[in-house]
């Protein structure tokens, strides 16, 4: 069985999607405030690993790391929803189709309590 990671073009493609995703996040005033002091290069690298692992590719994003990274940022449900929406929007634009999108949406949703 081919993984979503392979299906959508592997590392370079996922990295490109994540780079676009963060451009969207930074252009959106609601979530952008959380990234004022963030090192975007590092963030995109991390997020590529995270999404790669969600798609069955290499990389790992342990829940403990996710929780630690978002602790103390006072992220609300609305912020989480907006960023998740932007992620799914980016993936849709990158050509991800319904079923595959649902899989990602579900996994992302399951991480809500680690982040909010």
């Amino acid at each position: 069985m081919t993984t979503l990671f392979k299906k959508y073009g592997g590392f370079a493609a996922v990295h490109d999607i994540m780079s676009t995703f963060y451009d969207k996040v930074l252009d959106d005033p609601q979530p952008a405030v959380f990234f004022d002091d963030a090192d975007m290069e590092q963030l995109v690298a991390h997020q590529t690993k995270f999404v790669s692992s969600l798609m069955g590719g290499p990389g790992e994003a342990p829940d403990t790391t996710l929780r630690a990274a978002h602790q103390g940022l006072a992220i609300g449900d609305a912020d989480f929803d907006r960023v998740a929406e932007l992620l799914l929007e980016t993936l849709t634009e990158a050509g991800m189709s319904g079923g595959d999108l649902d899989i990602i949406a579900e996994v992302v949703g399951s991480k809500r309590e680690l982040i909010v």
Partner: protein
Amino acid sequence: MSDARLEERFEHFVKAFNAIRTHGIVIAQADTLDVKFANEWAMHRLRGAVNAITNLTDIEDIDQEKLAADIESKGKYVLETEFRFVKRPIPLRLTFTRLTRQDDLLLLEFADITKEKRMNFALDTYARDLEQQNADLRRERDRSEKLLLNIMPPTIYEEWKEHGLAMPVKNDASVLMMDFVGFSSISLERDPAEMIGDMNDIFAAFDKICEHFGCERIKTLGDSYIAVSGLPVPQPNHEQSIARAANSFVHYITKRNADAEHKWNLRIGLASGPIIGSIVGIQKFVFDVFGMPVNLAARLESISEEDQITVPVEFAERLGDEFLRHDIRTEEIKGIGEVDICTLQAKTKTTP
């Protein structure tokens, strides 16, 4: 071409340049660096840094001398810099080339290299991760290698690693069997941790002695210690090597007993002949030795006197005059028959 046609063509070019949304394009006078043209994307991107670019020197970080020198020698000048656009710094790569020599014009092209830089950073990160993983793997492999080298000789390990199996070896070799006297009662009487500690010390010393004389420890079984010489790698003087090792065992234990609270006494049997060495077992495998000499050495060890080495006379005869033969006798050995045997003693001390 009419002026009107020229004008029309010019407008098309300007529209085309302004339609470019990924690159900034600027044309400037080479000597004064005055800007003649800048497409919309360039104006838009550069406005964050300068109010309007009327002259290339408005762009911070431009090294005018280097610009002139690089254009002259290499035909281009490349500058990587950051522009604060809204809030975030945006990395840009600016490339200056000469547009035309006659008009003495410079062309500046630049692009947003955010994605490129992010990709490079990510690749660096993954390369580092990979390096770390490789180091972890290497450490793990070294650990298992060390463990495997405990249960098989290095040459067998190499063969096994390369081919996934190792063929049995049959050599003319010598075998040593060592056992402690009265071990059962020692093990009942003494504190287990202390007793095992003693045994570890002794076996560690024996391992060193074996290594010194080019012998191979095969295994320990309870309080028995089994070693060979000439297997898996053939050795012409295997009898001599094993006899010297045995003699050193005795010497070591005697010396140890002289100032130890708990005394240990041993018996050793040696024998030589064709011996097979092979990995045995599938899941729980171990390198082991088989053959008549192995059984004979075990029997000789069991009838050996305390702290003595018992060998077949035939074996002793091959040692030359390095060892003395005592107590030559004939014994009925179970499963083998009558064998002339003797007790072996070194003429001079052989210490590793």
